């Protein structure tokens, strides 16, 4: 077995404390106020220091499951907001999948009017506390930000997501996050399948119009990937629960332990149970495997299984949880997306002695959020780039002992524009590991497709919809990962919005 090879240098590097960051921000704010906030020229704004996100120290957080980032202070949020140039063409808005009026909400935040700021966001987004934390801002709004462009570094763009998170957290923590008003009952009923971001959005938007909504969820806790996949240290479950409770307060009926297609067929919901419309937001939950030898050995997990054991079943709490999880000593994670980072960082927290992230391409091609990649590295995850697993090797008990890998180099760009990794012949080497987590993504969950006649899907198994989110079946709509393939929270929410609009139009009295 290898020795523990944690990068102690990174882990022990200290960062400014939240108190220091806040103190600095207050001083900066005071200085700006003496100039007069309304008198700030673009030149001045570009000189305002970008606000760092306070975070638990790497050496500390790798031993706990609490949230890593701690959130801006009020002063930090305002100073960061003052960096925004209020561009008339607002290029950031074009980068936001749900077209939040970013300059307007940032302006309100800069002025200290957080209520107005959150109201602007909520015109377009239902889950700002979540999106502020998990959106890949660097390839969405912040990629287009003029500040980042002027300073020639996307990393220096206005931290739109962090400001969004601040105003959303502020609203929730001060008890101001009330469920939206609900119109009088229309007598119409809508079934929502799945309780991820797509389903939550549809439930809220449809319920608002006065239609009765039942949200069916296969698992015992609602929230979709936000509950079972994304770990607590990145998205506290209290936030997800809060959003679900808000739905309940609006009068949405939440039915966990109900798998549509098995507990009840989809067409029966429409034909026998009196639902006027159905929305399918069943997600992409079908883990992909590598199809390499040894993948069914003991100690090989899909990231979904590993994360579900830890998040949903609380396996990290070994004293109380009945569900065990392999506490691997030497863990390899295959993949380079958010799922892979989450699995690797969970393994760190479960006490692994080494965690190797094995990715076929280079760091630039990693689809994970930049912040998560940095955090993973700080927590001691070793990156093995341009490497791919070929074979997993077990002992006589079928337990993983090693992994055979092959080295790669980047070749010509492929269809997606990313340079294609090409194997280097003869570069095989083995890595001693006892746990392998396959985190190369998810395909669409086939259960509803298999149990529902006439529901069209494409060759990847995604449900096909028209531009209004309608499927091939009458009165049946779909959105989120089940339509897009594994995508993002914000896209799922956007799809939900659109489908809810169509459902509301369809149910409008004529």
């Amino acid at each position, binding site marked *: 077995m290898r020795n523990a090879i944690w990068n102690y240098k990174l882990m022990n590097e200290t960062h400014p404390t939240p108190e220091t960051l806040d103190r600095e921000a207050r001083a900066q704010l005071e200085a700006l106020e003496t100039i007069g906030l309304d008198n700030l020229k673009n030149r001045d704004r570009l000189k305002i220091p970008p606000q760092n996100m306070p975070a638990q120290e790497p050496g500390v957080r790798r031993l706990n499951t609490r949230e890593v980032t701690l959130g801006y202070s009020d002063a930090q949020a305002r100073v960061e907001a003052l960096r925004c140039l209020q561009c008339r063409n607002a290029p950031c808005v074009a980068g936001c999948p749900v077209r939040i009026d970013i300059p307007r909400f940032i302006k309100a935040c800069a002025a200290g009017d957080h209520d107005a700021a959150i109201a602007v966001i909520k015109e377009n987004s239902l889950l700002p506390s979540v999106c502020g934390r998990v959106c890949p801002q660097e390839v969405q709004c912040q990629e287009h930000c003029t500040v980042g462009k002027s300073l020639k570094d996307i990393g220096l763009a206005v931290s739109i997501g962090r400001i969004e998170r601040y105003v959303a957290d502020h609203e929730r923590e001060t008890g101001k996050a009330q469920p939206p008003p609900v119109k009088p009952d229309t007598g119409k009923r809508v079934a929502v399948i799945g309780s991820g971001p797509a389903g939550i959005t549809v439930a809220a938007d449809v319920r608002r119009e006065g239609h009765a909504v039942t949200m069916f969820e296969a698992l015992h806790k609602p929230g979709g990937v936000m509950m079972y996949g994304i770990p607590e240290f990145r998205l506290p479950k209290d936030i997800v629960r809060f959003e679900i409770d808000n739905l309940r307060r609006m009068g949405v009926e939440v039915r966990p332990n109900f798998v549509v297609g098995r507990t009840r067929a989809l067409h029966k919901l429409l034909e026998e149970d009196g639902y006027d419309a159905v929305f399918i937001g069943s997600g992409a*939950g079908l*883990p992909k*495997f590598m199809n390499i030898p040894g993948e*069914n*050995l003991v100690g090989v997990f899909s990231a979904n299984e590993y994360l579900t054991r830890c998040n949903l079943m609380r396996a990290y709490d070994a004293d109380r949880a009945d569900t065990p999880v*392999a506490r691997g000593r030497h863990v390899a994670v295959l993949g380079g997306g958010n799922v892979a980072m989450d699995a690797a960082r969970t393994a760190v927290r479960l006490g692994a002695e080494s965690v190797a992230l094995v990715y076929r391409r280079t760091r630039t091609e990693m689809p994970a959020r930049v912040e998560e990649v940095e955090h993973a590295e700080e927590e001691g995850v070793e990156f093995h780039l341009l490497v791919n697993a070929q074979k997993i090797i077990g002992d006589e008990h079928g337990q993983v002992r090693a992994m055979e890998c092959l080295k790669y180099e980047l070749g010509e760009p492929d269809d997606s524009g990313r340079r294609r990794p090409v194997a280097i012949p003869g570069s095989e080497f083995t890595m001693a590991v006892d746990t392998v987590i396959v985190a190369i993504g998810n395909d669409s969950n086939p*259960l509803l497709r298999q149990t529902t006649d006439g529901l069209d899907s494409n060759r990847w198994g995604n449900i096909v919809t028209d531009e209004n989110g309608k499927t091939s079946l009458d009165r049946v709509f779909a959105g989120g990962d089940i339509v897009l393939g594994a995508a993002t929270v914000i896209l799922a929410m956007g799809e939900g919005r659109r489908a809810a609009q169509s459902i509301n139009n369809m149910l409008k009295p004529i």
Partner: protein
Amino acid sequence: MGHKIMQRRQLADEVVQLTVEAPLIAAERRPGQFVIVQLNDDFGERIPLTIADADAKSGTITLIFQTVGKTTHLLGDLREGDTIANLLGPLGQPTHVEKYGHVVAVGGGIGGAPLYPIAKAMREAGNRLTVILGARNRDLLILDQEMRAVADEFILCTDDGSAGRKALVTEPLRELCEATHAPDLVVAIGPPIMMKFCAETTRPFNIRTVVSLNTIMIDGTGMCGGCRVSVGGETRFVCVDGPEFDGHKVDFDNMIQRLGAYREHEDVAHEKCHLELQANERNASDT
């Protein structure tokens, strides 16, 4: 919420039968399907249990299980009137029931529970039904009366001879395969090692053999892949593609290793050496 326990019966030493209120599942379930049971939202484990019987009219399902792990023990301790927090189902592909001709249903230990509804459905579909039911000893026998009632021919065996024939279930199975009118279909459900040897018994005779796998599961909806098995060299998910597969294609050795991954009890190992020893003895005497 939760599902109320309407009736509890102790079927054998460590075997409990619960009749549980679950009207939706009772209405939809078909033979071969199972439910996921969880006793506590936050820390409870999710375990699969086959639906042994259901009554759509009274809205109840019957679960039969052996108290082997923590969750089954807790479940076995529940009384009438108590509730089960979470019950998800019916899951899995139902058994394909049609008229095959002569069907032999082989049940070992607790495997008699999932086998019973399938045997009954096979008989109702017009098949001639032979049931072979086995257990380690007479105290561990379950559903023998019920099985006897549905079967055209009923063969009982125990390892120690305390009831019926002193034999492993594979013995009468092999005799049936050797008979002039060999079975058209064998359905074998029981401990993995028993299913493995049933499949080995029928393989030379080329008799289709269906087995029902009870792997470790978490979600039961195809989301985690924890239940995966190798069937004919391909990875399949027991919870959505199964639980029934062609016994001649299942990689039982891998499945047994995976089942043992978290097992504190050594009963699998125990069962395994026991059966393998006997099988070796038999092979030795064959040659």
